[in-house]
């Protein structure tokens, strides 16, 4: 059923949530198509049939039956079905089934002009504190307070989101400056990042990046991996506020975590200006 | 063809044009202040606990109470000036309208002292969200007062009220319309006073 939309451009879906979103999308588009074709046929038939050159005298009363009311009622009923059958449950899943920290991979994303800062809690699974006065665009973009509890093993990547496949991922989303919108088109994830608010979102990827890349073979996007897009106008760099996303298998993810932990180690080694020698 | 129903009422609606016009205008004013009141509530909820109350306590309640009374009095003199016209007593109208203008000016003077008092203490709209909304709401209300004073002043001065001799009915209607506006401004203050000063 979704094929028709895929052919119209809907990207390959690679998340559990996305499948259901695609279902609604397909159903609504079918409804739209049927209505449009139905009405359109009626429209064209009347235009031809009742043109003045053929039908010189109009009828004062016109159509007598009230079939159309039935049709309107039918549209209303279908809408009710879509709402109660799909839309509400999906939304409920989106906002009330947010997994807790301990049953998911829990990350924070702090958007800023024009980058995505991704805050990993490290092995302890707990985030350190952040403070506005510690923000330093070069060295500490989210103002992480290394001295606070749980902060020592936290690490931050810029524009690099790494997650494991088939795991519940939870992201707490916020922004430092203006409103951005965190979008992963292939996972059907989109959520505004609003300063002053921290909004949770969650998803489960069903494909690794590698598998995904195979699906793109032969298309114009061949070889281009997954990306984080910004969907809300956020200034003149909005169009290039792009992040990269990698979905690993479990081993790959663990390996990546270890690698990050090593970086952290190295950096905290020379404490006068850390990170300086790496770049 | 003339525009009908300027002085006499349209039979089926029972209204003159300007009567309906001012009420539609007031409806839009209700929504204007509605938007601001809802912003006030919104911001109050968003602000840290007790923030609004803390800044609110910096306002001067006695001055505002006097101002409330002044404004109520001006509303009363306003309606009396209309009633005087209804009784064809132009001299009384002049007196009551003059009083209304006087009360309105007193209101502005007191507000002036309130504002400058705040400025002297280094309190500006940017000092806190509460102060921001306080200055915005009262400032906008003050603009309404000034607008009303201009209109009423015009009807009070000789060149504005010479219509009384030619078309007394129409002039009386105009005063009624101006009055409706003025009472509305009063009514807004009746809500502003508790939500800004007392809560």
């Amino acid at each position, binding site marked *: 059923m979704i094929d028709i939309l895929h052919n119209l451009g809907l990207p390959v879906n690679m998340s559990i949530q996305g499948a259901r979103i695609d279902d609604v999308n397909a159903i609504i588009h079918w409804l739209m198509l049927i209505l449009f074709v139905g009405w359109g046929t009626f429209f064209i038939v009347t235009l031809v049939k009742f043109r003045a050159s053929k039908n010189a005298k*109009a009828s004062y009363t016109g159509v007598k039956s009230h079939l159309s009311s039935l049709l309107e009622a039918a549209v209303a009923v279908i809408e009710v079905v879509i709402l109660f059958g799909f839309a509400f449950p999906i939304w409920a899943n989106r906002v009330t089934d947010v997994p807790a920290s301990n049953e998911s991979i829990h990350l924070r994303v702090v958007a800023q002009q024009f980058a995505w800062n991704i805050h990993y809690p490290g092995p302890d699974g707990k985030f350190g504190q952040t403070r506005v006065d510690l923000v330093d665009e070069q060295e500490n973009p989210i103002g992480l307070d290394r001295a606070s509890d749980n902060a020592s093993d936290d690490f931050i990547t810029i524009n690099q989101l790494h997650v494991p496949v088939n795991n519940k991922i939870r992201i707490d989303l916020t922004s430092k400056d203006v409103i951005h919108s965190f979008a992963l088109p292939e996972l059907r994830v989109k959520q505004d990042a609003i300063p002053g608010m921290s909004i949770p979102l969650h998803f489960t990827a069903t494909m690794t990046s590698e598998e995904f890349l195979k699906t793109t073979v032969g298309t114009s996007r061949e070889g281009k991996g997954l990306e984080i897009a910004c969907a809300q106008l956020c200034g003149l760099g909005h169009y290039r506020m792009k992040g990269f996303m990698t979905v690993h298998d479990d081993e790959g993810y663990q390996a990546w975590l270890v690698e990050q932990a090593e970086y952290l180690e190295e950096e905290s080694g020379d404490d006068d200006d850390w990170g300086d020698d790496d770049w | 063809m003339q525009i009908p*129903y300027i002085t006499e009422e349209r039979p089926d609606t029972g209204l003159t044009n300007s009567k309906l016009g001012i009420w539609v205008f007031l409806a839009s004013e209700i929504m204007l202040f509605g938007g601001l009141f809802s912003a006030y509530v919104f911001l109050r909820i968003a602000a840290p606990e007790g923030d609004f109350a803390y800044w609110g306590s910096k306002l001067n309640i006695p001055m505002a109470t006097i101002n409330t009374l002044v404004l109520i009095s001006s509303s009363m003199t306003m309606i009396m000036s209309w009633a005087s016209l209804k009784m064809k007593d132009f001299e009384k109208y002049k007196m009551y309208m003059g009083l209304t203008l006087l009360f309105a000016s007193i209101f502005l003077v007191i507000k002036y002292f309130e504002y400058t008092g705040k400025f002297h203490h280094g309190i500006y709209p940017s000092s806190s969200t509460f102060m921001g909304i306080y200055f915005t709401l009262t400032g906008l209300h003050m603009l309404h007062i000034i607008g009303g004073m201009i209109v009423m002043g015009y009807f009070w001065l000789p060149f504005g009220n010479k219509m009384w001799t030619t078309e007394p009915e129409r002039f009386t209607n105009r005063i009624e319309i101006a009055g409706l506006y003025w009472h509305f401004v009063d009514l807004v203050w009746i809500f502003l006073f508790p939500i800004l000063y007392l809560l």
Partner: protein
Amino acid sequence: MSNDSHHEENFLQKYIFSVDHKIIGIQYGITSLMFLFFGFCLMMVMRWQLAYPETPVPYIGGLLGETGILMPEIYNMLGAMHGTIMIFLGVVPLAVGAFGNYIVPLQIGAPDMAFPKLNAASYWSYFIGGVIMLASFFLPEGAARSGWTSYPPLSIFETGQTAWLIGMVFLITSSLLGSMNIIVTIVQLRAPGLTWFRLPFFVWGQFVTAFLLVLAFPPLEAAAVLQLMDRVAQTSFFLPSGLVYSGAAVDVYGSGSPLLWQHLFWFLAHPEVYVLILPAMGIVGDVIANNTRKPLWGYKSIVYGSVFLGFMSFIVWAHHMFLTGMGQAMSSFFQTTTMIISIPSVIILTSFFISLWGASIRFTTPMLFALAFLPMFGIGGLTGLPLGVGASDIHLHDTYYVIGHFHYVVAPGTIFALFAGIYYWFPKMTGRKMSEALGKLHFWPSLIFMNGIFLPMFIQGLAGVSRRLYDGGQSYAHAQDVLQWNEFMSISAFCLAAAQIPFFINIFVSMFNGEKVGRNPWQSTTIEWSAPSPPLPHRNFENQVEVYRGPYEYSVPGADKDFSPQTEK
């Protein structure tokens, strides 16, 4: 007012500072067409950049800087101003200011608007607002660049927004004055015998629209004042605590909320979109009845439908905000109201369709535009449904799908209806008919190219391409598959521009050389056609009109001609 038409008026009084609703209507019309044209030009520059990113813009490149390449900040300015100009300076003034002003008093048999001086004030307030908006391009700060929605905090940090806000205050004032006037005029100045259900549908459309403007615009005015305070008095109504902007903590009190703006903005802007469509539907209704030579089918349900539409439009605004973190209860509420509001639109559209059955359809130019409105609005409206369902909006929000959705309703929808109105009422305004041949030359290419621009947007939107992208999606991987459409759409847009040339010529040629026609060239029933063309200054009709029947009494059985005007016994 002193409307004794005997005393001589000089040129200024007669054509510039006139208080005659017809002159004001025409002033509105000319000004708003120029703004539409200007908004169109801005968009063409944008479309050039989208099709050929970072290549110098031909002809006017010199205006954009040395290289002639459109820079991102200018792209954002053009985008914001295209939206603002098209909506607030183009379509609303044309639909409400021009048609509302010119036609409503005539259709209800009134000598003028209820408050002629306010009417003039409304026009001049609009004019000043427009000048401020245009002037903002030449200010050192430049024009607004945070979208027509002006979401804070961006709009507070970016330059150029102050002029936008001040301009908006003038435009809002203008709309308020204008719509107060329309409400009072319709309630008070209906000719004897013209009961509510004898009003042409166009008047109903204007009536509901006027209510939307009067009640929905003030909250935006409030919001504009608050944003102005944030910008000039350093308050922080829309700025939360703890912001860091370009590397430094923002020095304000904080504790505000960016969402407050969104709520107040959409509280206006959703009703606003029905402001764009209701007058258009009104025009379409009138034109269809006239050219089918039969009454509108289900007139009453159309009227109730539009009243209900107006009412509901106040309680759906948050469907623009599903992704701001809305919880279950609220999103369910707004999804439900959004679905409910689609029903009256379906009813109105269905009635229009059914009106065609049994008709004797004349394919005049206004009728062609009105007919094209139906499926085009159909596409636009139907694509509103997946946006109104939260689940599918997750994928479609802020993509080109949204752009496609609303352009279908406003461009081949409203703009076409307004074209229909211009062709239809031109004879009333000038006493001459517009050329049918040029009209058709205008219609067919416009129809084709409109679809050429906007259909591919759905494809791009489904692929997930965000809107407001300076490079049209070049830098994003997921856009690669649909990028080829950009050039196609842009070329269609340039062709659409070319397709407006016959229209332009038609207006000027017909004004002076068009076929002279009598009072009622379309053999119509509504009251405006019983006035001379153009109607008499300051009084419209020779005598007080009286009304004896409903608005669309065409082909009444037993009547001697196929139309029975409302003013004839």
